[in-house]
Every structure is written in C-alpha cells, then in structure tokens.
C-alpha cells in the first residue's frame, strides 16, 4: 500500500478522527489523490467494528475543503469524462450518506463546492463561528453546477427556495446563517489564545467537541433530527405540494432569464437538475446532475469563467516584491466620491487615512460617506457599532496638511486639471518624508505629465480606482518610465490591502480601461446620432452580456466627466470625422444634463421610480447632431459588434503597444473595470473563442463604411492570419 499523504486518521477512544491535509497546497481541494485516500481510509474505518463514529476535519487553519480541484474539470477532454467523474464521486458520497457509523464534519474556514457536498453527505455538521468560516456552492460562478450530489441533497436539507438561492447565486454563507438555515447542526465559538496560538487551539477544540458529538450520536444521546417547529412543518407541507414547487421553479427560471438574458447555461441546468430529483426521484436526479455537470464543463462559458477565476487569483498577488517600507498611513487629497471611497476601503482594512479637502462642506460630506457605508454594515449586523467606531478612529478629515509628514503614500483625487494636480503635488512634496509615494487617481491625464512637476518622479505613480470604489474590485496601477520598482511594489501592496484586483499598465492617455471604454462610448454616441435610441441601444448591449448599457453607464459616470475623458482622449488619439463624442457630451452637460447626479442626463432620474424615461430635452440635442444610419451596418447584431469590436480592438492594441503586460490582465481589467461580459472571459478570450479571423472580417465590413476607426490593429491581424496563435 502506498503511504498516505493527504488523509490520515487516528482513534480517539472509539471515534476515528480523519484529517484532511494536502501537503502540496495551502488550501485543501478535492483532488484525485485526496479523494482516493479518503475513500481508502473510510473503508478501513467501516471495516473496523470497534469504531463507533468518525470526525472529518481539516488540519489547515483557514479551510475545511475549498472545493473540487478545478484542474480535474479542466483536464476533462469530453463531457462524458466529466460526467464520469461526477458519477464516481456521487457514488462515493452515497456511501458516506449511508455510513453505518455517524460521520461528523467539523468545519473551520472555507467549506465550498465539493467541500460542502462532502460535508452534507455526512450525518452531522459542526462549524466554527469564525469570521473566516463560509459555506457555499460557488460552482455557478464558474459556469458549472454542484455535480457531487449537491443539487440533490441541498433542497432536502435547507428547503427548495434556500437551496436554489444558494446554488444560483453561489454566495458564501456565514456560520450563523448556516445554523439558522439548518445547513449545520451546531456552532463552536472561535477561541482566543491559551497555552498555544488561538487558531491552533480553536481547531483542537472543534475536534474535541466533534468527537464528543460523534460519541453522543453513537450512543443515541445526541439526536440527528431536531423536533421541527410549527413553522417548519407548515413549510414542509406547502413544499410537498407539486403546484407550489412548480411555481418556485417558474419564478426561479424567470429570474434567471431576466438576469442572465439567457447567456449563462449553468443556472438553467441547476434548476433542471433540482427539479428532476424532486419530481422524478433521487436516481433520476443524480443522473441528471452528472450529465448536466458534464455538459457544462465543456461550454465556452465555463471555460471563460474559470479563466477569469484564475486571472483574478493572479491579480490578487504582488508580483513586484515586498516594499522596502510597509505602507500603513495614507493621505488622500480630495474628499469627493473617489477620495472618500478610497479612504473608506483603506480604513475598513485597518489602514489609517487622512482625508483632506479645501472646504468644510466637502470634508464633512466625505466623512459622512465613509461613516454611512460602515453604519449600513452595522444595520445589517455585519459589523458591531464598536467595530464601526474603532474603524472610524482610523480616519481623520481635515483642511490642512498636518500629519502628512508621517504618511507613507499620498493619493490625490482632486479635479482633473493638470495645473491643480501640479499645485497639490508641489505643496505635498514640500511636506512629505522622502520615502512617501505620490499616487494620482487621475482617469485620463498621463502620469508622466503630472510627474513632470515632481522633484522625485520615481516616487510618482498612477492608481486609477473605479467608481464606486467600495463596489468596483479593479485597481489599475500606472507606471511611467521613471517610476521606481519599490514605488510600484508599495502601490500594489496598498491596493491588495484594500482588497483590490490589480492590473499594472504602462502610462498612456486613458491607460487601459478608460481607453477601451472611450471606444465604446464614442461608438455609442455615433449610434445615438444615427437614431438607435438610448433605450434600444442599452438593451442591445445588455443582451450582449454587458451588466449596464453604454448610455446608462455615461449617466452613472456623469456626462461632464465623460465629456472630459472624451476631450482628453480625442486630443490624444485624434478625431474620426463628424462631431466628436466630446462635442456632444459637452453640449449635454453644459445644459445641466450631467447624468444621475443632476437628476437629468440622457435619461430622467426621479426618486422612487425605477422605470426611467428618456430625457426629451436631451433627445432634442441629439437630434441636432443627427446623421443617417447606413443600412449595411445597422442591423442589431452589427450595432452590437460595432461597439464590441472597437473595444476589443483597442484592448489588443494596448497589448501590442505594451501598455498591457499580458492578456490575463487585459481580460481582468475589461471584465472588472469596464463590465465586459464575464461569460466571454474578457476581450482576449473573446478573440480566442470567436476566432480573430472572423472578428477581422466583421471589422473590415465596418471599415468599408466608416473608415479607419474600424481598422484592425496589427496584432489582431497577426492572429487572424495564423489561427494557431492564441492569447491564452
């Protein structure tokens, strides 16, 4: 017999404690190795008549089992192979479910996907109440479904509505919530330090409690089922009605359709598998689950989403080394939406921040923004009022530069005017210590132009956050030729502390994200001029998979800001005929139509109504710039591709010009910063799966009508000529 490396067990009295510990990784995942060892161990335990119960626990501090190994899924060559994998594990977990001795899953840390499916096949679950304990079925986020019995066991355990919600959203469930839902039976409090470190002792304690419970179940002192409350009985009766279940499937399907526009196959298959199990019996259910699992693994959507997952993991690492000095104290200039947003994500993660502006109103507003965001968490009980207060104590709002001398990094978020930027840079440089970094949160001004006024250009860097800062995960970091390596490492470390997904790009007008968005916006404006209609255009793009249409996006960002971006980028890249986007956007914003913030943009915003109508005055303005729509390139599909192809071409051009370091960051930036449809995986994966040749031929058709704004870039042409060339 081969020595076991991933799974071990020992007997504590008559309870077998089985420990999961993958020595090759920080996190336990369900690999072939772990799984076969686990089964071998279980067979041994089951064969041992002296063992009365078992505890399944992880030796890793932060996780129980974080899911099935994605490599298994990726290495499957066909849907049949993946189905086979699902079938095999389903059968093994069935043995767990039918175990002659009670198996207690003792959960501390992540228990996700395959990990949860293993846990719910056990007889009893105990979880620590740790802030890091989460249970969930995130498969849907990877374009998959819980293929190890999850779609069958979950509805029985937590009820149909909760089970569908878990599997369709893939959200993480905290220990407290899991207890309330009936996903776990018992909670254990995390312990503080004793005669050994807290984490170590907590896991030991969890094990002690679990062993006690296993013994209790074995000698019938601990019941496996709780007396159901009246409410639960009622709920069970209602769920027993076929009509009610039918309603639930229908509602869930409609919701899925509405949210995914039918672009994501996984949610549909999840509902289908659950339904088959409940309506046609477990056997049919398991079969449907494994077959659907197999089918999903080979979809381009799953491929793209898994690619994004890996990309995100890569972009949450610091590839530039440890900064010489740990960055702890931030100073932020400008307490507007962006500045306060940056302060918010900083203090929330334990950094200290100074938020400086020039008027009392602006710092008061900034302070309120940070406070409100924290207080909302208090109201939702995600934070205690005490934690809120302590967090707020790390924020100082002020009108002067006091305290700047001890800042490790200054991030400016002042008006997008190079003269103001230069002024504050000079003021700040007079005070800050030599190690302090100066970062600009400009969205379009080239960093080198800002750095031109600096005495220490090697300390100047761009940190482009996306609005709203607390919701948008992306941070685009921009280096100039002069930016030092340590400055970059420090900026990345700050961003990571703030919980951001980071891409690092070279300085250029609009950097990467805004440069691509600008192309989308510019084309959208032309489409409006051609009479596409704001609502129609938005719906065209959302049905392509964008989370928000370009017109709504402009209104959200603010038409004045969009105009400003357009002005800068038009200057940098030149205009292609007719009225530029900049002219039209400025015209709109000068009339006071600045978007959502002013109540009127291209749409009208009224409190209390979600249904928004087009602003007739804005429509009038647009009519002024009306041009005829060439019928050859104005079908719905053409209109979609006109917007998308310009975006994609610009992204590829950024890689060609060396603005981007690699296609992975390009895809991450586009999806997390620009809302590029996630199921396409980003512009580069989009080109890979669609085929560069096809994209080029479409663009050529547009080029014939509109000229060079649709001319494919050289790198795209190279890929079109040689189909073996792939970005990923």
């Amino acid at each position, binding site marked *: 017999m081969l020595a076991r490396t991933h799974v071990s067990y020992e007997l504590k009295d008559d309870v077998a404690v089985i420990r999961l510990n993958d020595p090759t990784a920080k996190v336990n995942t369900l690999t072939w190795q772990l799984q076969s060892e686990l089964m071998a161990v279980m067979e041994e335990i089951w064969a041992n008549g002296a063992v009365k119960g078992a505890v399944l626990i992880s030796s890793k501090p932060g996780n129980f089992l974080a899911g099935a190994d994605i490599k298994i899924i990726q290495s499957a060559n066909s849907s049949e192979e993946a189905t086979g994998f699902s079938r095999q594990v389903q059968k093994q977990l069935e043995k767990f479910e039918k175990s002659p001795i009670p198996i207690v899953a003792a959960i501390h840390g992540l228990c996700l996907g395959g990990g949860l499916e293993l846990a719910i096949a056990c007889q009893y679950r105990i979880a620590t109440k740790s802030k890091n304990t989460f249970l969930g079925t995130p498969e849907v986020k990877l374009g998959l479904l819980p293929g190890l019995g999850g779609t069958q066991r979950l509805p029985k355990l937590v009820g149909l509505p909760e089970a569908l919600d878990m599997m369709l959203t893939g959200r993480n469930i905290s220990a407290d919530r899991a207890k309330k839902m009936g996903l776990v039976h018992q909670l*254990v409090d995390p*312990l*503080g*330090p*004793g*005669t050994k470190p807290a984490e170590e*002792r907590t896991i030991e304690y969890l094990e002690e409690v679990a062993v*006690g419970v296993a013994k209790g179940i074995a000698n019938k002192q601990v019941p496996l089922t709780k007396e159901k409350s009246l409410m639960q009985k009622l709920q069970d009766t209602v769920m027993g009605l076929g009509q009610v279940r039918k309603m639930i499937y229908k509602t869930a399907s409609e919701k899925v359709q509405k949210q995914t526009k039918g672009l994501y196959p996984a949610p549909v298959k999840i509902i289908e598998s659950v339904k088959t199990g409940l309506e046609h019996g477990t056997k049919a259910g398991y079969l449907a689950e494994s077959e659907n699992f197999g089918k999903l693994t080979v979809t381009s959507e799953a491929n793209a989403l898994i690619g994004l997952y890996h990309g995100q993991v890569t972009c949450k690492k610091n590839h530039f080394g440890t900064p010489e000095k740990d960055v702890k104290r931030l100073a932020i200039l400008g307490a507007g939406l962006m500045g306060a947003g940056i302060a918010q994500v900083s203090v929330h993660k334990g950094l200290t921040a100074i938020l400086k502006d020039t008027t009392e109103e602006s710092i008061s507003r900034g302070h309120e923004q940070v406070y409100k965001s924290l207080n909302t968490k208090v109201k939702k009980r995600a934070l*205690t009022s*005490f934690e809120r207060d302590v967090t707020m104590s790390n924020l100082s709002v002020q009108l002067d530069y006091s305290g700047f001398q001890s800042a490790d990094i200054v991030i400016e978020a002042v008006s997008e005017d190079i003269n103001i930027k230069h002024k504050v840079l000079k003021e700040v440089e007079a005070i800050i210590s030599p190690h302090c970094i100066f970062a600009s949160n400009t969205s379009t001004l080239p960093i080198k132009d800002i750095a031109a006024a600096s005495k220490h250009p090697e300390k100047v860097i761009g940190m482009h956050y996306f609005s709203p800062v607390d919701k948008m995960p992306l941070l685009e970091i921009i280096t100039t030729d002069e930016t030092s390596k340590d400055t970059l490492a420090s900026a990345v470390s700050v961003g990571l502390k703030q919980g951001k997904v980071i891409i690092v790009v070279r300085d250029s007008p609009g950097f990467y994200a805004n440069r691509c968005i600008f192309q989308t916006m510019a084309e959208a404006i032309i489409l409006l001029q051609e009479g596409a209609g704001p609502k129609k255009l938005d719906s065209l793009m959302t049905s392509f998979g964008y989370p928000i249409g370009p017109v709504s996006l402009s209104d959200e960002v603010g038409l004045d800001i969009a105009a400003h971006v357009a002005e800068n980028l038009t200057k940098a890249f030149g205009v292609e005929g007719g009225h530029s986007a900049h002219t039209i956007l400025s015209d709109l914003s000068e009339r006071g139509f600045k978007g959502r913030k002013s109540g009127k943009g291209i749409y009208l915003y009224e409190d209390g109504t979600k249904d928004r109508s087009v602003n007739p005055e804005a429509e009038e303005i647009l009519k002024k710039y009306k041009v005829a729509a060439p019928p050859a390139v104005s079908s719905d599909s053409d209109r979609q591709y006109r917007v998308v192809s310009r975006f994609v071409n610009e992204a590829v051009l950024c890689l060609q010009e060396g603005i981007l370091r690699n296609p992975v960051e390009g895809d991450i930036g586009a999806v997390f910063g620009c809302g590029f449809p996630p199921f396409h995986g980003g512009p580069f994966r989009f080109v890979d799966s669609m085929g560069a040749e096809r994209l080029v031929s479409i663009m050529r058709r547009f080029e014939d009508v509109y000229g060079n704004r649709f001319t494919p870039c050289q790198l795209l042409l190279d890929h079109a000529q040689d189909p073996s060339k792939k970005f990923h």
Partner: protein
Amino acid sequence: MASMLLNTMWSGSVRPSRAVWLGARSLSMTAQLQAQVQTKSKKTLARPGVKNIVLVEGVRTPFLLSGTTYADLMPHDLARAALQGLLHRTGLPKDAVDYIIYGTVIQEVKTSNVAREAALGAGFSDKIPAHTVTMACISSNQAMTSAVGLIAAGQCDSVVAGGVEFMSDVPIRHSRKMRKTMLSLNRAKTLGQRLSLIGSIRLAHLSPELPAVAEFSTAETMGHSADRLAAAFGVSRIEQDEFAVRSHTLAKQAQDAGLLQDVISFKVPGRDIVSKDNGIRPSSMEQMGKLKPAFVKPHGTVTAANSSFLTDGASAALIMSEEKALAMGYKPKAYLRDFVYVSQDPKDQLLLGPTYGTPKVLERAGLTMSDIDVFEFHEAFAGQIMANMKALDSDWFGQTYLGRKSKVGAPPMEKFNLWGGSLSLGHPFGATGCRLVTTVAHRLQKEGGQYGLVAACAAGGQGHAMVIEAYPQ
C-alpha cells in the same frame, strides 16, 4: 495538591465540621511554618521617603444572594450599613476622615454619587467630600487605591474607601423611542402636539431596556467569554466543578470557624438581623455535574454552579497614613504597598487580569512568587481562575503575551483563597475589592505570613493586583 486538598475535604465532609476545620488548620500552620523558614527577597517594602499607608480596618455587610433579605433596600442603604459598621468597629469620630470614596458598577440613577448619599445617611459630617468611582469588578479596588493616592500625595491623612452593589433592583429603562417621545412631550406646547405625540406611541415603544450584561465593545456576555477562555486553556468541566466545590467548602469552614471577621451584623428594616453570607452551599461533585452549561450550549463547561452569583452587599475600609493611625491610637492591620492596573483584549482575554497584573506588581515590589504567603484572587468563574492558573504556568503564554523569558508560575493552592472566594461568598461587583484586601490582612494575621497578593479581573478586559504587607504584631 488541589485534588489532595479536596480529598481531605471530601472525606471530611461527612464528619462534624469542626474536624474538617482542624484538617485545614493544620495546613495553615504548615504555611505559617514555611513562612518563617523561607528567606524573603525583601524584609519589608517600606521605602525611605515614601509614606507608609495602612489598612486600619475593613468591614462588610453579609453578602446575600440578590432578591433575598436585602430585596427592598436601596444601594445607599447597604453602603450606609457598611459605613456604620466601620464607625462602630473603629470608634472613629464622625468628622475624623478627610474623604470618602465608593465603588459601584450598576448605578441607581437616583443616587448616582452613592458615596455621598451613604456618608450623609451614615451620619458622617456633611463637611466630608465623597465621590463614586466605577471600574467594573475592581471598582472598590479603585476606591482604595484612590485613597492611597490621596494620602501619598499629602492631600489627606485618613480616607474611607468602600464599595457597594445592589442587584435586587436594577434600573430598567423605557426604550429609546419611548424616551424620545416622552422628552418631546415635555416640550410640546399645544394640546394638538401632545395628542399627536401620544398617538405616535406604538407597541414597540413599550418594550423595556434592561441593563446590558454584555460587554459593550464585543456584545459578548461575561459567562460566554469565560467559557471560551476556559476552553482556550483546556480547562475541563471537572476541574471547574472541583474548584467551585473547594471554594464553597473552604468558605463554609471559614464561616463556621468564625474567621470571616470582616462581616458585620446588619439589622434590615422590617426584617431580622443578618449576620452571615447566604450563598455558601457546598455540594457534591455529582450534584455539580448535573447542571447544564449556562452560556455555551450544548458543549460549554461554565454552569450556574461554577460561576459567581448575583449578589447584594457593601464593604468599607479605613485607610490612613501610618503616622495618623498611630497618632489616633489605632493598631493597623496591614500596609498597602505596590499596586497596578492592567488592561488587555476585552474579547479573548477579558478575564485574564490576574495573569497580567501578578507579574507586574511583583516586579514593582521587587518580590517573587515564592515571597507571597497569602493569595486572594477574585473568583468570577471557576473556569476563569483555572485559566489564569494555566496562563501563569505556561511558558508559551509568558513569552508570547507577557514579554517574559518563561512562565510566571501559578500560585500554590495551599496558599490560595483559603477562606473561600467570590464563587461561594458572593460577588457584589463594586464591593468585592475591599473584601479581598481585608481578607489578605486577616489571613496574614492568622497565618503569620508577611506578604499577601490580591488580584482581580474586571469587565472591559481590565485587571488589578496589589501587594499587602503584614503589620508587625
């Protein structure tokens, strides 16, 4: 040793109580013997140029389970009884103190400066200023050390310090919504405004607000935290139950043998004279084992029987400069020497005050653990005491959290809380500190030791420790 001691107790518990006491007495005589043989690090803690401050007398009302004989009183009544007991025992003229300080935790809103109300009621001269301090379970320690500070600074020569807690009645408030409505009602000018305010009252307004038993910063109740602490240090349920039984058994012996001389009799208006603590209940391990965990369910270890109970009681102590005490013809009981306050993480180390305070105060005094003859630690929970013992005895904890090269060492059980503790005598939050100090003084006299150590934990993750030196007899 602890278990040996317990065995003696157990075999003894069937015999007449006097015999049990003899067993324990022989133990204390051994301690006395040891004290004489041992060489101390220092002969005395007296320092040239530093005023000697002494405990002249310490008294307390009997500590009663809340809701029993004291139920109809008010907090200042209890404090008054302690003050009068002190006056009675010392024969102190009513204008002969310079200042009065009281500690309390749950404040009666009508008597928020309970020190002043009690002093006036006890007949002290109205020319003596009085103030009230609060520092959770070490409130009366704070009262005493404030007194020490006033005397050391030359502001006063003679101060009465004490503490009071009254859990039979606690302030229960209207909800915030209701309070807001009622306050607005005060300001309403017209009938219409008043009616509309009254009309705005909903059922939800009427749910009352109880004083929080939970730590404000963490929202965790103390019992819950104690259970987690016990688990963190691997303290078993049996260990906790054994310690609780020990506390009750020792308290019973001390009570029966008349050792609790700090207790004064108190004629409760409308009731009988109370002269004994009523929470002392030695029970068998079997009985202890029957209880279900009170806080962490179902696998916790802290139960109602191995925790201190809600108590009514008050204490008072007369503290003077040595010169003044001698000038007034008193024979002091003990010197109050070095003391420290410590504070730490209110979540995971809420009740580890003694562990942090002990090494710190010993270092200040220049003493070692073996110099201490008498230990009196506040027993909030049996699990908390055992956790502190294990923390003091852990090299890892000493290195990681106390900044030491190795462990501090746990106090030997044969010197530890020999007359019972908060678990059995009761724990009126604000009054316990005085009891601890007075008990050390009395035990030093009785057992013939030279140095005693008081240590206590308190809500908020705070703690206190004080070294007490016997007054030459």
